[in-house]
């Protein structure tokens, strides 16, 4: 199971979504697909046409910058970060 940490911008969009959850997934794309299954529409908030992770969303797997194809190991930590931008 991967440990997934989500940005604070997401729970207001998806009632019941926690900031931290465990998911059974083999890649980042799988994890996002599972999030989308449980909270429909989630994929569109994280992934743009391509598909690719949205430019201002950064995903780290075990503290390394990751893409959709990045593999997850047992107990991987996945941090989904809304980039420090805006004003």
């Amino acid at each position, binding site marked *: 199971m991967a440990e997934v940490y989500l940005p604070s911008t997401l729970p207001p969009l998806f009632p019941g979504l926690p900031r931290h959850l465990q998911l059974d997934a083999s890649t980042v794309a799988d994890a996002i697909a599972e999030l989308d299954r449980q909270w429909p*529409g989630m994929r569109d908030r994280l992934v743009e046409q391509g598909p690719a992770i949205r430019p201002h969303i950064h995903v780290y797997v075990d503290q390394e910058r990751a893409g959709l194809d990045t593999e997850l190991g047992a107990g991987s930590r996945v941090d989904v970060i809304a*980039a420090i931008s805006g004003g």
Partner: protein
Amino acid sequence: MSKVLVLVGTRKGCFVLESDGDRRNWDVKGPFCEGWPVYHAVYDHDSGGIYAAAASEWHGATVWKSADLGETWTQSSEGLGYGDDGELKMSKVSSLSAAHGRLLAGAEQAGIFESRDAGATWKLLSALDHPASKDWNDPAKQPPGHLGVSAITPHPGDGPEHFWAIVQGYSLFETTDDGKTWTARNEGIRADWPREYDDIGFCVHKHVFSPDVNRMYQQNHCGMYRSDDGGQSWTEIGEGLPSDFGFAASAHPHDRDTFYVIPLDPGHARTMHDGKASVWRTRDAGSSWQRMYQGLPQEDAYLGVLRAGMTNDRLDSPGFYFGTSTGQVFGSIDEGESWSELAGYLPAISSVEVAVID
């Protein structure tokens, strides 16, 4: 007694200004939509919902919906995109239209999406096929913040297949077959730059109908215009105004000859002239203009108003409303003779629409 809602799209969410039919006292509610940048918010009389076109740098484009006049909100972008294999890429939803039991959403890159289930799902209705679409969809040829389809306007009195759309920087288009084919309606419009195509290359900012559907007005990058033949041709009517540039415009809902514009400095500033906030009104279809300013700030008031930033209700004594890029909303219920501030400290305003709910 009826309820009047002024829907305000801002860079930091949607706000709802609420009053009764007298329109003298206003309550400000918001911010809604989690502070997402809202480009356009509208009320749908068919479903009773408020819809807000939004785009977040983090989370992409979506349409927010409130079925209870702003108390609670949800969002959906299901189908609101060009697909992983699509040639076009969506950056934002720029404009909304609600009519005939459906919603239309204008997007950048340029396309029009349709929802027939109150915003739950969307599908592409038209990408406005034109040889120039490769240009208006080319980021290298567009300014930052390009809106793509910046406005969609139903044709008053006609069925859903007849509506109008603006592609920012290129053209006003008319379709009579629900977006299958489009005709550019720019005859008589001036462009102060070289154009690559005969029929387009005109920067239409706002297009509004008078109560006579054959008479319409537009605020263009290069002048204010009137059409008396249903948009087949246009006549410039800006003489007497402090500049031919502006974004916002509003047509009187009961008098075909009365039209309002907000001329702006056409340079970098794009604010009202001389620091004096003013709305200009014609009572004779553009032959002459009067500066309307009572109640508006007349000293150091460098206010901007964007293309979707002005509207009017259709009550017997109509109300006119505009919102500024510095967060003020002003309204008039006496034909523009005097104005009052409905809200003073909102975020930068992108759009203002009004709904009267009985």
